């Protein structure tokens, strides 16, 4: 094996990424902002901000607060609506030249379906990601991802009509996580994105006010990384053949490698983009170096290779000590 130069390409059962380090939904802007700082054309892919049927203005500021090793935020899903998105945002994203996943949101199964329908046949979309943290109005605003039935309904309906592969984005904060992921994949999801941010709150003790004007928000960043690794591990063990994209607190290559070892096929970088817009590049380069060191040839060689339980005997496959 020594001598074989590792490559970074990842094949998510047909959806090909040039590197395993994408940008997570809501953390990339429109594709033009990074000019001068980094060439996003070298990223592994990008997920658009979540797009809904109608424009959403979003919640009041302040929309963010720092917490220990974390970022608490909420935009209220601000987005220009699918029409404007297709007209003026998507072309910019597509121009970057990397796989573009469009994140779809809604408050009813119907909304998810209608947005998904409008994406069909549009140039420059590699896949659709269902943002299942959206509130299910029929269940009083609980996230779709929190229970099996609503999650499957959304993902099933989207998958039935979509020519584009559908990724279901789930969150770690439900005990049914593994069952939901499994059911989503059976309902037609091409893959799973895991994990979305956790619900959080921070209060300014000087003013008695929540630091976010909206009251509660979402916690992301390094703080939640161990939660994402555990979630990926659990799901990957249960459905190892389903493409799984790990997300949560990836700052450096090592964080991404943990997710890959836990069972992810690729990763997304969210919050880390804000302090370090080069992060997806550095993560990819770090993975490459790591593969070289270990004598492995592709990111897929790391997938799910965390050593647990009875000693693995897989003669021939390179082990963690590099041979």
């Amino acid at each position, binding site marked *: 094996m020594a001598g074989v130069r590792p490559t970074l390409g990842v094949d998510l059962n047909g959806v090909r990424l040039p590197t395993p380090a994408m940008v997570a939904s809501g953390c990339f802007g429109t594709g033009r902002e990074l000019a001068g700082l980094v060439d996003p054309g070298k990223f592994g892919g990008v997920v658009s901000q979540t797009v809904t049927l109608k424009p959403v203005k*979003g*919640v009041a500021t302040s929309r963010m607060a720092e917490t220990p*090793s974390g970022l608490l935020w909420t935009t209220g899903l601000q987005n220009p609506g699918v029409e404007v998105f297709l007209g003026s945002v998507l072309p910019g994203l597509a121009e970057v030249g990397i796989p573009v996943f469009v994140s779809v949101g809604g408050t009813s199964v119907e909304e998810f379906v209608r947005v998904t329908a409008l994406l069909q046949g549009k140039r420059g979309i590699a896949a659709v990601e269902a943002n299942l*943290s959206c509130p299910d*109005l029929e269940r009083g605003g609980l996230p779709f991802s929190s229970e099996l039935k609503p999650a499957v309904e959304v993902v099933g309906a989207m998958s039935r009509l979509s020519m584009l592969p559908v990724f279901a984005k789930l969150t770690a904060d439900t005990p049914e996580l593994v069952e939901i992921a499994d059911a989503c994949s059976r309902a037609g999801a091409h893959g799973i994105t895991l994990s979305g941010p956790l619900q959080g709150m921070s209060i300014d003790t000087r003013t008695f006010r*929540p630091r976010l004007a909206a009251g509660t928000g979402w916690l992301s960043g390094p703080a939640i990384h161990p939660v994402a690794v555990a979630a990926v591990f659990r799901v990957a063990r249960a459905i190892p053949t389903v493409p799984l994209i790990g997300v949560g607190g990836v*700052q450096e290559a090592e964080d991404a490698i943990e997710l890959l070892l836990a069972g992810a096929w690729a990763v997304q970088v969210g919050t880390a983009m*804000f302090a370090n817009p080069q992060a997806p590049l550095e993560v990819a380069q770090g993975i490459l170096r790591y593969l070289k060191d270990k004598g492995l040839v592709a990111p897929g060689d790391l997938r799910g290779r965390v050593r647990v339980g009875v000693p693995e005997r897989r003669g021939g496959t390179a082990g963690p000590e590099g041979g």
Partner: protein
Amino acid sequence: MIRTRCEILSSKKAGAYHSITLVAPEISEKARPGQFIEVAVPEGRRFFLRRPFWIHQVSRRGGWAGTLEFLFDPRGEGTAWLAEIGAHRLLDVIGPLGRGFAYPKDLTACLLVSVGYGAAPLYFLAEELKARGKRVDMAVGAADQEHVFKPIEGKRLAQTISIVTQDGSFGIRGRVMDVVPEMADKSGAEVVYAAGPRELLRDVAAFCRERSLPAQVGIEERMACGLGLCLTCAVPYQRVDGKGFDNVRACVEGPAMNPARILWDRWMGGEPQMVPTPPEGFPVVRSWPG
């Protein structure tokens, strides 16, 4: 906009503020008044977002060519760290960011109104306006003498300057808005620029609307990225056609913005408003009673 590691040329106290001068030729080259930089805090800290600061001064010529100065109020963990690191250390800086102040084409009398470190971008602006042959008058407010931003510099830059402190420890006692109307009259102000706390900016907006004066204000909002990626820095801004508003990014569409277009009440809010479910499409609290 670029990202560079800049050497700290000097790091020193300036009244209540701390001043850092960086060697940052590429950023200085492009910087305009009203733009800002995002400074990285060091690895291994429990906070990791960059900190935004107004670009106060850049030198494009002479012995200090290629340097950039910013000043801050050491108030939290990030600024405390910045106040401590000494000269010759490196800072990871992105800049220049955002849209700076526009210079008036035809008008010539400019009134610059600031409170606290809001003076930082306005002194820079004053230089540029003067270089363009404009008249600059300044109203500079602060809580107390310590917080009066570089008063000697201010005097040098302005045709006339009024310094106002809340406790009267320096200049006039009161609020800066107390002196603005008279200054506007006396200086024949044709355009107003302001930077400082949002309460000031709102008052300036009201004043300028009343007098039908064109104005620009430098907006500060909590920024997770400062780059236009995250939508956390939203400011409700009237559409050009006047039909409704959008939440625009202070870091890209601002920080220099037209106060007449800002929906002040909406932006500054009153009581924090807990978002019902669904807020405007996102779950915030599930069991919000009622």
